[in-house]
């Protein structure tokens, strides 16, 4: 469907196809392996000064701790340790020793239209964290040839006495002014962009309102026992299970949210490793799954505490509004072991003389390797002179390798499927596709060990929790669809919808299908002004405005796009992704005074707050449970996380803030459900449950009481339009027209 947004997985596959280069590598890699191994034994490791070894540092820290205990007494020790690290949102976990300094004020320099900005800095006794960047660099400034890597010189600080300091190194406490020197724009061709950039930076002691949050200790991190917390959805552990725990080590509180920091601590047998079956679950004492996001800036420092540096670490962030303590983190998976590295098994198959890409050959033959049976389900030729092999490995094996006798593969890959763990797919590609009778050789069987469920419990005295809102019955589901009455003839109002056939057009019509007017052609969107009189349609020539009351039209070629209007209709917002500008841009409604507010480029605009101060948007990739809703302050550009849109579509949740700014509607994970969630983070209400193939449009009425949606029964057919009263749950069908709903205008 044209109106669906980014299909990341698809484009990644295509990029992989284009950037991969097929070549014979097996023989070369084998020879290189032998050559490398012949160089053993390796030279002895050079020992650095003992004091700077991580273990020595840890020992020194422990010694200092003992000194602190002796001097200050045990009761004060905990507080002392808590001061060692602090979390600065946006900068991460830093040493919280005395003397933290920050950048006095953001500074920038513009040369030839290129802007160097230093936006902030946090300086501690052990490091510097600098937020800086170049913007507005023209494409022509970068090398046209891959053989030219462009400028690789790194920026540095230059002090008054002429000495250089790396920008990540500590700046001595007695130096409060440095020159930030960037020899060039990174990656640009020397001469194509200005060189020798210099900006004076001034550092001042962190002000009293500097936000550095305590990284608090979880006193005795332990694995949960099942009798500690009986939860639905959590697997009970057994004495025979592989032992391990989810160790929650630290937590950080911040404005109603908490970040849990920790790691997995497996206790496995020699030679065993493990595989996690999916994202961790966080479950509260009421058995509710808690939506969380990954706090990407809260990385645990490498040499910190009891967290193994090579361990599997996590930093989960969630709102504790409505959460009942204690909270349990549950991780499930299984162990893996080599069965017999030397074992092989063969199978002869005939793929024919002219196998075609995508045409699957069903094989369904059993193979036995080292006493374990598995099944080759099918072979599918692909478009890169290769085959995909689908295997059913059964309950015991986790993987096997495949090769074709007499043919050297140039590449390959494979892996299991979280949805169907017994199915394993592996692929091989060749210079020329092998055809006819093929001898398949299977090897390197890996055995799946026992399943496990590891848990960790976190309990702490936090702020008072808000009771979760009760779940209501959905207003519309598959069973209720057929019973939905049509909009009554006496009901007045208009809708804007997109039709695809016979050509893509945006159409304004009365609810009964009369008075149809084509607003624009093509696939550009429509945004209804907050006042409800102006319809902005995005066309190839600019934004076209149509006044519903007067029927007048006008075109503004200065506006490249328009997604939402400010509450007073004086400003508009859209997403820019071109050249140097990527992110949310606001502008006057005539296109003047454009200002970039964010810099991602993949934001999904959700709406404007009623007071005009905030713009809400959702972004993917920050939570396993759905898109993350953020707000950006129009005046300052300050971005804040609001909440995870739990269970939201992975493609495009079509987030829509209600006109009163209290709720958000968004599509569910299968794209055919719709949730309503209050912005206070309380539990989402399922408004529409699994109707048809997908919900293709979502829009609020101006009074915030009704939501119009369009539902696709199947791909390629026009969608049906429904109006849902969110207060009384009544649903009506707009039977006169079909298409994707864009706006609704009710009296």
């Amino acid at each position, binding site marked *: 469907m044209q109106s669906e947004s*980014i*299909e*990341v*997985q698809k*484009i*990644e596959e*295509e*990029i992989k196809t*284009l*950037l*991969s*280069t097929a070549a014979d*590598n097996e023989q070369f*890699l084998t020879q*290189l*392996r032998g050559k*490398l*191994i012949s160089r053993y034994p*390796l*030279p002895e490791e*050079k020992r650095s000064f003992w004091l700077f070894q991580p273990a020595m540092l840890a020992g020194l820290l422990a010694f200092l701790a003992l000194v602190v205990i002796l001097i200050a007494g045990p009761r004060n020790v905990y507080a002392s340790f808590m001061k060692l690290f602090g979390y600065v949102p946006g900068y*991460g976990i830093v040493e919280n020793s005395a003397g933290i300094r920050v950048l006095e004020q953001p500074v920038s320099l513009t040369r030839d239209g290129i802007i160097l900005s230093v936006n902030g800095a946090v300086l501690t006794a052990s490091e510097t964290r600098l937020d800086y960047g170049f913007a507005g660099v023209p*494409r022509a400034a970068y*090398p*046209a*040839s*891959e*053989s*030219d*890597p462009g400028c690789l010189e790194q920026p540095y600080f230059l002090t008054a006495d002429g000495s250089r300091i790396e920008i990540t190194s500590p700046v001595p406490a007695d130096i409060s002014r440095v020159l930030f020197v960037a020899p060039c724009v990174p990656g640009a061709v020397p001469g194509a962009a200005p060189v020798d950039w210099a900006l004076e930076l001034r550092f001042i002691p962190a002000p009293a309102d500097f936000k550095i949050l305590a990284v608090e200790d979880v006193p005795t991190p332990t694995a949960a026992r099942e009798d500690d917390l009986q939860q639905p959805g959590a697997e009970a552990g057994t004495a025979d299970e592989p032992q391990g725990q989810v160790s929650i080590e630290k937590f950080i509180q911040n404005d109603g949210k908490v970040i849990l920091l920790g790691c997995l601590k497996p206790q*496995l047998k020699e030679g065993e*490793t*493990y595989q*996690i079956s*999916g*994202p961790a679950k966080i479950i509260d004492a009421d058995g509710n799954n808690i939506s969380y996001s990954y706090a*990407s*800036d809260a990385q645990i420092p*490498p040499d910190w505490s009891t967290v193994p540096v*090579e*361990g*599997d*670490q996590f930093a989960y962030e969630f709102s504790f509004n409505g959460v009942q303590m204690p909270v349990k983190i549950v991780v499930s998976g299984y162990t893996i072991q080599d069965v017999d590295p030397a074992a092989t098994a063969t199978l002869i198959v005939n793929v024919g003389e002219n196998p*075609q*890409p995508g045409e699957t050959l069903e094989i369904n033959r059993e193979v036995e390797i080292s006493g374990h049976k598995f099944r080759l389900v099918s072979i599918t030729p692909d*478009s*890169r002179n290769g085959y995909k092999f689908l295997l059913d490995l059964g309950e015991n094996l986790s993987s096997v390798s495949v090769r074709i006798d007499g043919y050297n593969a140039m*590449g390959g890959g494979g*892996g299991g499927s*979280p949805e169907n763990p017994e199915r394993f797919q592996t692929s091989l590609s060749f210079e020329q596709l092998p055809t006819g009778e093929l001898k398949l050789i299977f090897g390197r069987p890996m055995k799946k060990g026992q399943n496990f469920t590891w848990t960790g419990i976190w309990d702490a005295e936090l702020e008072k929790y808000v009771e979760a809102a009760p779940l209501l019955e959905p207003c519309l589901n598959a069973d209720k669809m057929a019973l939905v009455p049509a909009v009554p003839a006496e009901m007045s109002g208009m809708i804007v919808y997109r039709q695809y056939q016979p050509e893509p057009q945006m159409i304004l019509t009365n609810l009964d299908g009369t008075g149809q007017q084509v607003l624009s052609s093509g*696939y550009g969107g429509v945004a209804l002004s907050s006042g409800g009189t102006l319809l902005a349609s995005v066309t190839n020539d600019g934004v076209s405005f149509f006044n519903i009351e007067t029927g007048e039209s006008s075109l503004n070629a200065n506006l490249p796009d328009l997604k939402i209007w400010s509450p007073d209709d004086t400003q508009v917002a859209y997403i820019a*992704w071109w050249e140097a500008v*990527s992110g949310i841009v606001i502008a006057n409604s005539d296109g003047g005074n454009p200002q970039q507010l964010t810099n*991602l*480029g*993949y934001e999904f605009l959700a709406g404007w707050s009623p007071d005009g101060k905030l713009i809400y948007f959702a972004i*993917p*990739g920050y939570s*396993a449970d759905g898109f993350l809703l953020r707000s950006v302050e129009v005046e300052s550009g300050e971005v804040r996380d609001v909440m995870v849109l739990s269970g939201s579509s992975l*493609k495009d949740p079509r987030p829509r803030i209600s006109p009163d700014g209290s709720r958000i509607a968004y599509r569910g994970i299968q794209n055919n459900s719709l949730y309503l969630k209050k912005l206070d983070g309380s539990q989402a209400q399922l408004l529409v449950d699994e109707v048809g193939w997908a919900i293709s449009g979502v829009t609020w009425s101006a009074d915030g009481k009704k939501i119009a949606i369009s539902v696709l029964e199947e791909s390629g057919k026009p969608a049906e339009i429904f109006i849902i009263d969110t207060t009384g749950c009544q649903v009506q069908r707009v039977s006169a027209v079909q298409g994707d709903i864009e706006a609704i205008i009710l009296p």
Partner: protein
Amino acid sequence: MEKTMQQRRQKNWVSSREADLIRSAKQNPAAFGELYDHYAGSVYRYILSRTANIDLAQDITSQTFLKVIEMLPRYQHRGYFSAWLFTIARNQMADYYRAHAREEKILPQLQTDSLSDTLSIVVRNERLRELSHLLSGLKEEELDLLRLRNIAELSFAELSQVFSKSEEAVKKSYYRLLTRLQSRLEESNAI
């Protein structure tokens, strides 16, 4: 998309075994061999993707692993062996390009499906052609980001180490790049 990300994350969960191997590999060739088996293919594919020249890719892959052998005794594991490895590979590439400053640009090679009269293959090939054109106009660092993510299959955490940026910054750059490519594909009606 999310499934892919989860799968990539899961790959990182098997890192306890890797840490053991790295410790052993400083003295034990068998352990090094296992590490090599795990990474050699993807390092080679990554380098081959950048050079599109088998001889050159083999040469730089050899140099990369020789460097690894040389530096391994001093390597301190911080959970990102692959990031360390690919940083060495990139440095070897940069060394090569510095020494051969007049090499031709390596464009993504389009290998379309074999001839067929089905509409879907025609449409797909057309889209791939357009994408190939777009990729050839990217900056090297952008292409490298795409390669390391999609050919070498590094996680964002690993990429953040390779590029010396925060994980969020790398993630931002990556998705911004994908969005830009996707939008331009849509613009050209390639989908």
